[in-house]
C-alpha cells in the first residue's frame, strides 16, 4: 500500500512538473515574455526592469529553472493592476468558484441519481426514452445559452431570481466566510442561506448541465449492469421489496464507477466555470481571468491556470488513493 501511495504521489508530481513546463512554454510562445508581463502603457525602463528582475535576459535553461523555483513558491509575479501577488488575488476568488462547482455537482447528482435509476428500472419504456432524450439534448446544449435563457425566463420574465452576483446588498456582513451558501446552511442562518441559494441556483444549473447529463447516463448504464447480477436475483428471490433491491442492493454496487467519475466531474466543474461566471457575473476565478485577459494582466491568468490544474491533480490523487483503500485489488494490480 505504501508503495502504491508513493508511486501515485510521484506520478502526480511529474504531472505538476509538466503543467508548470507548459505554463512556461506558453509564456515564451511569442518570444517576448517581458512584454506580456507589462501593461500597454509601460515605458522602456519598466520593460528593462522586468526583463532583468524576472531574468528574461538570461539563458533559457536558467530561466526555466528560475520559473520552476518560483512556481514551487506559487509566485507568478504581481498583478500590474492591483500591485499584489497574482496568486493571492486568484486565491481570494477560489471560494466563490469552489462553492459554485460544489453546488453544481450536488445538483447534478440530485438529478442524475433518481433519473438514472428510474431509467434503468424502466428500461425501454417511455420513461426511459424521455430521460435519455433529455440527457442527449442536455449534452448538445451550449451551457452559456441555457444560462441566458434561464435569466430570460426566471429573472427577467418571472422576476423570481436575481440575474447576477452572490448575495443581495447588505447580506454579506452576516457571513464570516466566503462560502455563503454552505455557511448559511451549517449555521442555520435562514436569511443568508435563502439569499445565497437564490443567487446560486441558476449559475449552478448552468455549470452542472453537462455533468448531470453525463452522470444520468452513467447511473443508468451501471445500474443496468448490476441489475442483471446474481445477487440482485437472490435479493428478489428472498422476497425483498423491489425498492430495497434497487436502492440498497443494486445502487450500492452501481455506485463504484460513480465514485471514480465523481472526482473527474468535480475537477472539470472547477476548471469549467469560466463561461458560467461570465454569464452570471459570478465573482470567481473564471470571471477574474476574463477580466485579466481584457486588461492584459498576464500574471493573473498564469496563476489561475496553474492553481486549477494543481487542484485537479490533487482531487484526482485523493480520489485514486481513496479508491485503492476501498478496493484492495487496485493497489496490488
Amino acid at each position, binding site marked *: 500500500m505504501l508503495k502504491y501511495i508513493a508511486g501515485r504521489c510521484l*506520478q502526480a508530481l*511529474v*504531472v505538476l512538473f*509538466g*503543467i508548470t513546463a*507548459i*505554463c512556461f512554454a*506558453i*509564456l515564451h*510562445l*511569442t518570444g517576448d515574455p517581458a512584454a*506580456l508581463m507589462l501593461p500597454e502603457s509601460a515605458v522602456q525602463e519598466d520593460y528593462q526592469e522586468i526583463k532583468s528582475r524576472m531574468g528574461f535576459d538570461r539563458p533559457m535553461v536558467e530561466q526555466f529553472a528560475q520559473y520552476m523555483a518560483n512556481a514551487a513558491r506559487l509566485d507568478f509575479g504581481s498583478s500590474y493592476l492591483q500591485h499584489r501577488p497574482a496568486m493571492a488575488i486568484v486565491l481570494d476568488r477560489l471560494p466563490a468558484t469552489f462553492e459554485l462547482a460544489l453546488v453544481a455537482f450536488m445538483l447534478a447528482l440530485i438529478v442524475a441519481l433518481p433519473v438514472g435509476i428510474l431509467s434503468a428500472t424502466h428500461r425501454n419504456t417511455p420513461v426511459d426514452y424521455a430521460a435519455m432524450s433529455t440527457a*442527449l*439534448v442536455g*449534452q*448538445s*446544449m*451550449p*451551457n*452559456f*445559452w441555457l444560462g*441566458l*435563457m434561464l*435569466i*430570460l425566463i426566471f429573472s*427577467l420574465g418571472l422576476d423570481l431570481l436575481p440575474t447576477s452576483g452572490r448575495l443581495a446588498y447588505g447580506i454579506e456582513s452576516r457571513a464570516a466566510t466566503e462560502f455563503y451558501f454552505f455557511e448559511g446552511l451549517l449555521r442555520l442562518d435562514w436569511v443568508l442561506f435563502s439569499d445565497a441559494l437564490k443567487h446560486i441556483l441558476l449559475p449552478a444549473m448552468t455549470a452542472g448541465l453537462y455533468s448531470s447529463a453525463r452522470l444520468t447516463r452513467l447511473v443508468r*448504464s451501471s445500474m443496468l449492469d448490476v441489475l442483471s447480477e446474481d445477487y440482485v436475483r437472490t435479493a428478489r428471490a428472498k422476497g425483498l421489496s423491489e425498492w430495497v433491491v434497487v436502492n440498497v442492493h443494486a445502487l450500492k454496487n452501481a455506485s463504484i464507477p460513480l465514485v471514480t467519475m465523481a472526482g473527474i466531474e468535480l*475537477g472539470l466543474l*472547477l*476548471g*469549467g466555470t*469560466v*463561461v458560467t461566471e*461570465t*454569464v452570471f457575473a459570478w465573482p470567481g*476565478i*473564471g470571471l477574474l*481571468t*476574463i477580466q*485579466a*485577459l481584457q486588461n*492584459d494582466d*498576464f500574471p493573473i*491568468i*498564469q496563476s*489561475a*491556470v496553474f492553481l*486549477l*490544474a494543481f487542484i*485537479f*491533480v490533487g482531487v*484526482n490523487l485523493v480520489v485514486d488513493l481513496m479508491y485503492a483503500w476501498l478496493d484492495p485489488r487496485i493497489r496490488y494490480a
Partner: protein
Amino acid sequence: MRESGNSRAAAPGAVRNGRATPLADAWQSLLRHKAALCGAAILAVIAAMAVFSPWLAPYDPSQQIPWEARRAPLTLFDSGRWVLLGTDHLGRDLLSRIVYASRVTLIVSFTAVVISGFIGLIVGVAAGYLGRWVDAVCMRLVDIFLAFPFELLALSIVAVTGPSLSVVVAVIALRVWVVYARVVRSATLAVKEKDFVQAAVAVGASELRVVLVHVLPNVLSPAIVIATLYVGRVILIESALSFLGVGVPASTPTWGGILGDGRSYIDTAWWIAFFPGLAILVTVLGVNLLGDWVRDYLDPRIQT
C-alpha cells in the same frame, strides 16, 4: 456486422462477390435507425447552409443599418426589408449572420477533430505498440493535458498569441488529441497480441510494416467513433470560446460570437442570443444522434 444478411437482401445492387460493400451495408443500417437518419438530415441541412451561404442568406451579413437595430423577428421595414429572425444591435440581419456563421463552425470543428485525430493516432499507436518508456512518457503527457482547466488554458494561450482561426483550432486540438491517444493506445494493446500481428512479426515483417499494414487499420474504427462523438463537443467548445471573445476574430460571424453580442441585449432583444444558441443546439444534437449510431455500428463496446 449486425444484420448484414438483411442488408444484402435489401440491396442487391450493392452485392459484389457475394458480399455487401461496407458502404452499402452502413447505408442500409443507417436507414433503419430513425434517430441517426434525423441527425444525418440535420447535418446535411447545416452543411448546405455553409456551402451555399451566399445564395441562402437573404441579406449581406455585415451590412449595418443602425436605425433598424434590435428589431423583433418577422419585422417588415419601410425599406421593404423583411427580417425573419430580427436584427442585431447594429441592425444586421440575424438570419444572414447565422447562415454565414455555420461556415466557421464547420471548418473549425472538422479541422480540429481531424488534426487531433492525427496526433492522437500517432501517439496512441506509438505508446501501445512500443510500450516501455515511450508508453510511460506518452501517458504522463496525456495526464498533464487532462489536468489543465481547458477554458483557462485557451484563455492563457489567446492572451499571448491573440485570437485567430488557427489558434482556435490548435487550442481545441491540444485538448482533444488526448482522448484519441487513450482510446487508440488501448486498441493497439489489444491488436498487438492478435495472431495475425504475431505471424507478421514471425515472418520477418519490419516494425514499420507491421504497424502500418496490420495495426493501424485495426485501430481506425475506435478513432472514427471518437471523431464522430467529439465533433459535437468541439462545436460546443468553439462556440464557448467565441462567446468569451477568445475564439475566431469578431469580424467573422460565429454562432458563439453572435450569442455573446446578444448577451448584453438579453433584456430588450432576446432573439439575438436565442437563435444562434438554437442553431448550436440543433447542430450538436444532429452530430450526437449520428455519432451514437456510428458507435453502435462500428464498435458497440466503446464507452465514452
